């Protein structure tokens, strides 16, 4: 899954010459929190609703007046993403820098924007919960071939897997979370238990 699949194309932008007041009005009107700031057709900075609130706060010792130009408070340089970046790269950048969006640049041209909400959408798609499905979670030893054994069993029952994720648990095993395109996960849970897998979800049909 690449950034270009989850980004908003043609983002709303504002000119560097605009005022804080105008940026605020634009955010309110469009229901957005992030505004790329443009200068001469290029991305020059970024301003968020939080930047505006902090800059103008009555609690600040020297608040900026509403007619201040955006260039005074915008952040730069701007951290950006490439349309061909995998979504997990964008997620890691945003997490490490603790920022809420990444403008997407193709060469120097602004072609989109990705926000934290878009990454949540990506997570929903990656976990398969956007389609009707049932959840199965299996705990397997961390060694080659376990996943093949699991998917082989599902394949032999002609069951389609909607999504498959894995992560290491605290005991050094691997949890495999599956979403199955079937109304009934319990015959599968039973078959998996029968084949020696440690099924942990659904909890009341777990093997142990």
């Amino acid at each position: 899954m690449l950034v270009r699949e989850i980004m908003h194309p043609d983002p709303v932008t504002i000119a560097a010459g605009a005022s804080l007041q105008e940026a605020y009005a634009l955010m309110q009107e469009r229901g957005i929190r992030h505004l790329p700031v443009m200068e001469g057709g290029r991305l020059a900075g970024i301003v968020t609703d939080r930047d505006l609130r902090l800059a103008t706060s009555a609690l600040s010792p020297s608040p900026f007046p509403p007619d201040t130009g955006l260039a005074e408070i915008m952040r730069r340089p701007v951290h950006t993403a490439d349309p061909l970046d995998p979504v997990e790269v964008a997620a890691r950048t945003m997490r490490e820098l603790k920022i809420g969006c990444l403008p997407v640049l193709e060469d120097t041209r602004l072609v989109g924007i990705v926000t934290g909400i878009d990454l949540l959408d990506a997570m929903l798609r990656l976990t398969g919960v956007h389609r009707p499905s049932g959840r199965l979670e299996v705990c397997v030893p961390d060694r080659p071939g376990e996943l093949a054994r699991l998917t082989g069993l599902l394949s032999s029952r002609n069951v389609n897997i909607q999504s498959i994720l894995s992560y290491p648990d605290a005991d050094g095993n691997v949890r495999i979370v599956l979403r199955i395109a079937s109304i009934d996960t319990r015959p599968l849970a039973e078959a998996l238990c029968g084949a020696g897998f440690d099924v942990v979800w659904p909890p009341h049909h777990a093997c142990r």
Partner: protein
Amino acid sequence: MPVVVYHPGYASYRFGGEHPFSPVRMEMVLDLLRETGNPVRPVEPPAATDEELLTVHTARYLEAVAAASREGGAPSPVFGLDTPDNPILPGLDEGARLVVGGTLHGARLIADGEARQVLQLGGGLHHAMPELASGFCIYNDLAIAIRELVSRGLTVAYLDIDVHHGDGVQQILYTDEKVMTISLHESGEYLFPGTGWLHELGMSSGHGFKLNVPLEPFTEGDSYLEVVERLVEPALAYFRPDVLVVQAGADAHWCDPLADLMLTTQTYEKLFRAILDFAELFTGGRLLVTLGGGYSLRATPRVWTILHLTLSGLPLFDELPAPWLERWSAQLGDDPPARLHDPPSPYEPIPRWEEINRHNRLMVQRLQDAVSMLWL
């Protein structure tokens, strides 16, 4: 007395082999009613036309269903067709169209004032999406019938007591303020289709008119009926629909092999009486009831027989007649039920019942809080 809608051709809506969604369930109900001196004289509906199906589904989906259900037809897993849940047998399309035609015919009888109450002995295919067969459901008969009622200027409350979330009906009507949907189901954490959360309240003008109560596994009858009393009744009192449409799946019964709720036949009888009361109180008696899920052949035919007798105002009989038990012995299995109702205390006590009841009460409380700002 309700008008009963049924067509022998519903039997073509089948998935073959050991598939749980089997037309034998309706045959067992009809046979039990006949055997106990309550024979049903159903109205036979016409099959739904392309035009009627297109009020909810897309043209390319109709083509895919038709192509898949022809002899030697082409599978379309993209549309959820020919998967383990929804295998395709020749004739399925015709059967599905008759089932949709039945629910739609029932809706029209009510809209035309020719019937106040209709029991459709089939249908309730609440998982079907505009372009996706899902959870044994090919076409969404409920959404098609509800759209017909709305097109006649009627407002509709849809109550879904199937153990699974009524996701297709909710999604199709998500922005429609003329339709309130209420689904009570085992939580999507544990059960297909994984939706039906408290925060799913509808969108745009439909916001506040879509209600969901995700129930804990092993929820028992008393807690379930408390949810009905605390949530369903006030919701209907607020919305005041012209028609109440009910999907009466029987898979919340404790015997059901696909889910984990613990309703008894006694709970169902109380629930059906409450639904009748709601119709009298809020819709001038206008009520359309369909079947739905229900995969225990020991339980489902008894629940739906109770449904028919209750809606008809007929007394419930006690013992299951011997000829019926004999004819269906293969379906009823070893140790078949002896009576229409479950025996007292039919299952082992649920150790966590207090925690379960508290959780369900909390769900209702939270939902009430969420809608209190919207229902002004």
